[in-house]
């Protein structure tokens, strides 16, 4: 399950949660648990980690074009490596 997620993501580009949940046939809640788990293992990295949409203390607040609460994760090198061998 997790490796399928990694495999889909490693094909590159931006994937959105709704789409991924549909592809894996799981609910968005479960997908988010999976993403959190992969982040904990270091295969995904949460960008804008401090961005909860609270721009007050943020140094780039005055110029940030993507505010708001959408989280973004990046596939790490480790994650990319792990995704590869499972090409079937």
């Amino acid at each position, binding site marked *: 399950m*997790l490796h399928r997620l990694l495999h889909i993501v490693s094909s*590159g*580009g*931006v994937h959105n949660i709704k789409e*991924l949940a549909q592809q894996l*046939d799981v609910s968005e*809640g*479960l997908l988010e648990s999976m993403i959190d788990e992969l982040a904990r293992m270091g295969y995904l990295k949460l960008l804008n980690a401090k961005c909860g949409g609270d721009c007050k203390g943020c140094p780039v607040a*005055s110029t940030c074009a993507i505010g708001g609460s959408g989280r973004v994760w*990046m596939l790490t090198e480790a994650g990319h490596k792990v995704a590869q061998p499972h090409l079937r």
Partner: protein
Amino acid sequence: MTESEGKLIRVALAGQPNVGKSTVFNLLTGLNQHVGNWPGKTIEQKVGTCHYKDWTFSVIDLPGTYSLTANSPEELIAREYIIKEKPDVVVVIVDAAALERNLYLVSELLPLSVPVIIGLNMIDVAQQQGVKIESHVLEAALGVSVVPMVATKGQGMRELLVRIQDVICDGAEYTPNAPDIRADHKDVLERIESLINDHVPPEYPRTWVALKILEGDKQLTEMMCLRLPKETWDEVYSIIKQHEDACVAVASGRYAWIARMIRAAIVKPRAGPILLTDRLDRWATHPLWGLLILAGILALTFWLTYAIGTPLQELIDVYVVGTVAHLVTMALATAPSWVTGLIVDGAINGVGTVLTFFPILLIFFAMLGILEDVGYMARAAYVMDRFMHLMGLHGKSFLPLFLGFGCNVPSVLGTRVIESERARLLTILIAPLVPCTARMAVVAFLAPAFFTAPTIVTWGLLALSLLVLMLSGLFINKVVFKGEHLAFIMELPLYHLPNWRTITLSIWQRLLSFLRKAGTIILAVSVIVWALSALPGGDIETSFMARFGRLLEPVGRLIGLDWRMMVALLTSFIAKENAIATLGVLFGAGDSEAGLAAILRTTLTPAAALAFLVIQMLFIPCVATVAAIKQETNSWHWTTVSVVFLLVVSLVGGVLTYQIASLLAH
């Protein structure tokens, strides 16, 4: 099966935080409870007793944990208790409204070989959310008893106690349907299990220990390392090293299991009410339509700028700046001419002209603010990226770049998260090609002066910028680097109605920082430019500035620009808005009746103006961005490369534009 001593049954209560475990504990034990600490720890321990019919239940409340890793004292306490103390049954309280998350703990408990019973709590909340759980189906799927309950209403407790008794007294074997490791790692698990088999302490389930070792569990790995003879441990260790991704296989197995259980037991209305967000997103995130929508929104922004912003800006230019210049000149009639020069020809012509940007910036910031707040910006970034993906730019996502739409500095700083050195450098090199509001403001100032359809021109310039961005990205990637992979997962937040307070605050902050910039850097540059253009003789045509500017004229001729425009381009290095400030000073904007725009119209052909704008869009970034590039690349080499690259791209673009546009004009 476990025999209870006399008629005492030992129950351990487990569950994730906030599932109502304490409520259940209190309902069962009432006043017969004792609060202390887990031995040697500061974590609270609650034990109590409960009587039902002629049975006595001794209940211990285990710490609430999401899982049973070795990463926190609470988890270690919970699992050590279950393994060492071997309670007769573990009752795990599960939140029916968050079943997926809760099943993770269940997936960790089932392999422990102590009978598990599920207390399916909060079914009332679940029902409210439209989630219907078939507890019988869940029971069959899991292979363990499931007791529905609503602890807050005291429902289900008697059922629970009866079921506990059933499990204890039932002679049947306990066969839960526990998760497996992912199929392709089964043999690895078996190998480890066979290696550690003889050395695992008897109370620990062997398969579980092997599984945990593969998962990288610190406590158990250490335990086995100490207990195994050296050669056996070395073998185990080498297997672990070979399969460093085994933890994914273990977790994968659990999630696949959870998904199966959910699919079996939950009856949710399939699609639910289709949210407005989803409906909108069907268009907004479509690779083609989404892009068109984005293009449309941009066109709208520019159109508004020119419809509302430009007239206001011209008014301010002529009536405010011009009037202020006039008044100040009169007030300073008795002052030495250099003072008047400095203030009127320098400061007011320079900064004053830039301050006329206000209406334009107000509209830009307002649009940016609204789009952000409503939640559209995330879709814009997403669509841009999907489009690039469609163009065959696989794995070359430039999400951090989209931070550059306000200012390039955060996008350069944002590349920090990209680990691959090459991908990071690539992104940094093309980051300045993302138009920032300062560049756009300059374009917004000049475009309406020369073109009857400034919206189209501006939109075209933006599209050109992004085209150059994509092409450079492709080129650099193929030729210089070897094609790096960047992949992202993005959460698209729900659309919501704009919060005017937030938007106003954001506009206010941005305008303030613009004012600060104007009052400092732009003011300074304007004064310096004035000084250099007034010295030594007072006549601009013989000044230092002119002498320097004429050195650039050969290049300027290719683009149809005279030395003043070239100098203006150069000063845009300090801050993009300086292009306008410098033009204001060098063309003496405050001196004439008309504003700067009108003056320029008489000195430039539209082809030259277009070339100027193209260069402006693609030119080397402002010094703040270059400083950020130096900081992030930590190399003068790459900083120079980026500056040279953009210089070449912008000049080539400018020359081509001028030559082609002049040809077309004839």
